[in-house]
């Protein structure tokens, strides 16, 4: 099924700061939202930022077809995201979407979602999607510290939720992969979906491989276009260098040739 990509001026309906580094940006579309799947992303034009020349990619955190809006969960990294954090209600944001492939629909009900940092972004959309398909996933999310733990009640609506913080101020102490969930010889899952920092995805992929659990990760990469024409965003796979923005961002870890 081909999903048509579109360039639109979306309107900011809210910009909610979650903590010092993260905010939720809700954007309403001028036309009915296109069909979108969890794992897909948008390419945002950051106007009025002299140092931001290219668009910035963000996962779709939520898609609300009734409100005709999408929500992005953004972490402030540099100039582009800082600019977005200052957007006010009513301002326009030019966006290309929806882009990329999506997480696959699992053939099992025993599903674990693992996210770290702003890598949790696509997992909320994925949780909702799984629920619609009668799957209640286990959700494990890692944060730096208590202050950054957010949207837990929202996730809890869609699955059983576990938390780690790097400093132990909430949930289990340590990295996501140190969580007690993983301290078993036979994990009670047939599928893992994972999104977060590279090191985390590598670690989770290693566990999944050892335990022969199917695992999908959503990769980041430096993107110029986001729709497959510049070939800047490749990742080595069993089919050669593939584009993270078209053949990805979601890849089954079996297919990845990680360094």
């Amino acid at each position: 099924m081909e999903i048509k990509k579109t360039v639109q001026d979306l309107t900011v309906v809210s910009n909610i700061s979650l903590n010092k580094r993260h905010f939720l940006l809700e954007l309403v579309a001028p036309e009915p939202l296109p069909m979108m799947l969890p794992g897909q992303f948008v390419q945002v034009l950051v106007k009025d930022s002299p140092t931001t020349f290219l668009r910035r990619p963000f996962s779709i955190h939520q898609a609300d077809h009734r409100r005709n809006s999408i929500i992005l969960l953004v972490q402030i990294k540099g100039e582009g995201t800082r600019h977005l954090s200052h957007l006010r209600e009513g301002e326009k944001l030019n966006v290309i979407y929806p882009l990329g492939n999506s997480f696959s629909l699992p053939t099992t009900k025993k599903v674990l979602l693992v996210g770290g940092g702003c890598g949790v972004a696509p997992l909320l959309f994925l949780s909702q999607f799984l629920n619609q398909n009668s799957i209640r996933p286990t959700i494990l999310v890692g944060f730096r510290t208590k202050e950054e733990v957010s949207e837990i009640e929202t996730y809890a609506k869609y699955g059983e939720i576990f938390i780690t913080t790097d400093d132990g101020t909430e949930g289990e102490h340590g990295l996501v992969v140190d969580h007690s969930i993983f301290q078993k010889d036979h994990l009670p899952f047939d599928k893992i979906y994972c999104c977060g920092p590279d090191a985390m995805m590598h670690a989770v992929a290693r566990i999944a491989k050892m335990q022969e659990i199917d695992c999908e990760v959503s990769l980041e990469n430096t993107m110029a276009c986001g729709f497959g024409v510049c070939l800047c965003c490749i990742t080595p796979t069993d089919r050669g260098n593939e584009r993270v923005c078209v053949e990805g961002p979601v890849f089954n870890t079996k297919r990845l040739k990680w360094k």
Partner: protein
Amino acid sequence: MTNLSVNIAGLTFKNPVTTASGTFGYGDEFGDFMDLGRIGGVFVKAVTGSNREGNAYPRMAETASGMLNSVGLQNKGVDHFIKEIYPRIKDFDTHIIVNVSGSTLEEYVEVASRINELDKIPAIELNISCPNVKQGGMAFGTVPAMSTEVTRAVRDVYKKVLMVKLSPNVTSIIEIAKAVVDGGADVLTLVNTLLGMAIDAERRRPILSTITGGLSGPAIKPIALRMVWQVHNAVNVPVIGLGGIMNATDAIEFLLAGSSAIQVGTANFIDPAISVKIVEGIEAYMQKHGITDVNELIGGLRTE
């Protein structure tokens, strides 16, 4: 009635706006965003003799008003192009021009002669200016004698319109342009990317896997414009200009400097419908200035 069509080495383009190789895929990727029939032509991604995986990632770095890339001619080779891609794109209502790349003279000749067989491809653009491949690539475009040689060799096998794309990484663009014309080029395209570098100060590492890469975008526009102007005044073949064109005003500047057509490159990443908007913008400019034929703009810079 305004005339937007231009004739370049016997080939008529419905308007002077085309898209640059490596920034527009094979054209069909833009189907969701625009009508390809609205622009003059599409220069498709580089085609080489056989499959190339290109360089390792990261391949991209953003810079002030520009970007560096080190894609390195990733493509599946000329066979794949002819079998899988050509049938898919050949009937677009615009000129499809193939960017022919290689590492050796033989590879250029082979690809050119294979593309020569394709009915619906009216021209090739010989890429002797890619800074992102270790062998060949830019070397052919920076040494005049080599530029002549590779152009001549391709000229011998390629019977349609031969365009050659020049590298801006040279002391004298005029010297290279003349060398390429001597080799038999019908048209000159300029410029390809400028060799640059980006560093991540925090990690104390180069950003690109290849350390250096090709700079494109508005940052290079002044240099590209200057080279188009120099070459337009020095040779007798048509010039297709590009480098940092982001809007119709930029495009008009290149026409005035002597481009018979222009290519839109990096701008496609930021607005995938920009090429059509540029066509409209040129038309609006002509109406505002009472110009009925776009050919009046070409080389129309007033310098007295």
